[in-house]
């Protein structure tokens, strides 16, 4: 993995340098990171937080091994345009965190003209921006992603657990996730067992459980395109190996 190459650790600094960048979003993904509480302490022993708009005072982006990015890029915002160019130069690996950065999320539903900056109209997830596409290696679904998911992800990243990371790597190729996927790819294809995992994963209750037909029910108007439902569905991918938690 290139973030473990010689360059990363040449100055006797064995800690992984990570940063949290904020584009257009509610900051919920960064708050989810903070919700790891005591588990975060274990990880902070092995990583160094070099940049965060919420937790550090730095104004300029320092070089970093892994940049966790939340939010979609607003192409009318000069600050965002500057930040994405800086990100391309300073980060070795980018992780899109949450629905907005990964798939557009709730920003896809934005129709612009939002006060107090009415010129902000267009929002693009970072997985669709060619400038940084080659560096966006992982996309984490959720609105926001669970702290336990972020914790497991960070551990897997530090341990280079490729089996765990593989699904998140493949999610970077997707741009149009929504609850409809549960129907087109699972229910319509005859894979739905009616277990209800998708409805428990949905953060907005766009997917509920229909007890009459024992299948999920979808309300498109409530969907924020976060990708949680399909990612959680046991029929979408199940390459989980067998660790034992005691």
């Amino acid at each position, binding site marked *: 993995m290139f973030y473990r190459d010689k360059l990363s650790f040449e100055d006797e600094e064995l800690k992984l340098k990570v940063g949290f960048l904020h584009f257009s979003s509610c900051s919920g993904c960064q708050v989810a990171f903070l919700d790891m509480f005591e588990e975060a302490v274990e990880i902070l022993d092995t990583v160094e937080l070099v940049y965060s708009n919420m937790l550090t005072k730095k104004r300029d982006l320092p070089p970093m091994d892994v940049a966790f990015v939340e939010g979609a890029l607003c192409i009318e915002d000069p600050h965002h345009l500057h930040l994405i160019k800086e990100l391309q130069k300073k980060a070795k690996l980018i992780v899109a965190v949450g629905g907005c950065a990964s798939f557009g999320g709730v920003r896809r539903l934005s129709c612009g003209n939002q006060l107090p900056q009415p010129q902000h109209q267009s929002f693009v997830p970072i997985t669709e921006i060619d400038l940084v596409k080659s560096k966006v290696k992982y996309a984490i679904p959720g609105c926001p992603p669970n702290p336990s998911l972020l914790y497991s992800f960070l551990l897997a990243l530090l341990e280079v657990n490729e089996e765990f990371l593989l699904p998140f790597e*493949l999610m970077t190729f997707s741009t149009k996730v929504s609850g409809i996927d549960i129907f087109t790819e699972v229910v319509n294809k005859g894979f739905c067992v009616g277990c209800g995992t998708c409805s428990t994963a949905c953060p907005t209750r766009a997917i509920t459980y229909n007890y009459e037909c024992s299948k999920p029910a979808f309300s498109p108007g409530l969907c924020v395109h976060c990708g949680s439902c399909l990612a959680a569905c046991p029929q*979408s991918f199940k390459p989980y190996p067998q660790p034992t938690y005691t």
Partner: protein
Amino acid sequence: MVALNSGFLLGKYKEAFVVNGKGENPVKAVFTLMLKFGLIDGLLTASEDGNLPRLILKAEEVEIPVKNSCFGVNSLLKKAVQKYRLSKLAVFGPACTFDGLNKTQYFGIGCNWTKTAVALKVSFLCPGILTGTAFLSEVVDITGKRAEVSRFYFRKGELCYQLRNGEEVTVPPSLHHRYVNSACRYCLNLAGKGTDLTVVYLKEKDRALFIVRSERGLSTLAQVQRSSPSSLQFRKAGREVVDELLSFLKEKVLLNISDIIERVELGLPVPKWNDNKLRKFYRIWNSIDVNFEEEVF
């Protein structure tokens, strides 16, 4: 290469017991005792007819599905873990419930901190689940008359239904295969691999076969027995009991494999069967791994 041996059909297990519940369904008795003695703080399962998921918090309210129908159990997972803050949850359902649960535990997608919240996973040996109307149609197809199914069980390796009028009906696997939920026709984990305990219902209402897969399953059953020695009787199951089950599983899995091959011919995605590459997001959908998870989270 898939070999339809015991390891593939039934999975690894530590011990198999025939359990007598002294006039009560032994699985229900186990959960009731566990709730009563504080070994678990909640039970996530479905109603007796399997149509409604249930989160049970009190010993006197325990009910478990007795028909091969069990839907939506995981839809209450978030309520159990995040609303009620349950940390010693037991889950009872078919194997597919645990596919969802194991995935949630491993990746953390869906429900926060689930991996430390589940104390015991118990599945029942699932011949394929049916909806209420499918049960009615299947019984009409077999007996020629309308009757309601009250419970299902295995007798000498055969799937049987007990009807409300007390009549017993033997269900041929080939016919049963036509009435099960679509996804059950492609399932290769009927025996609930990846759980602590698999329960096989037997003809007598107060008896069941417990296939214990994990150390946690064994120690939990030992604790239950210590807490209330007279409630349950455990007897090691003979090899012939397991062999009878294997013959049923083999017949059903062969039917399922045949359906999976049909999907391949149609060019439809198949569940974990071959190395087909689908588009983008779903590229690993089809990466079959027949080595089902044997360890328990």
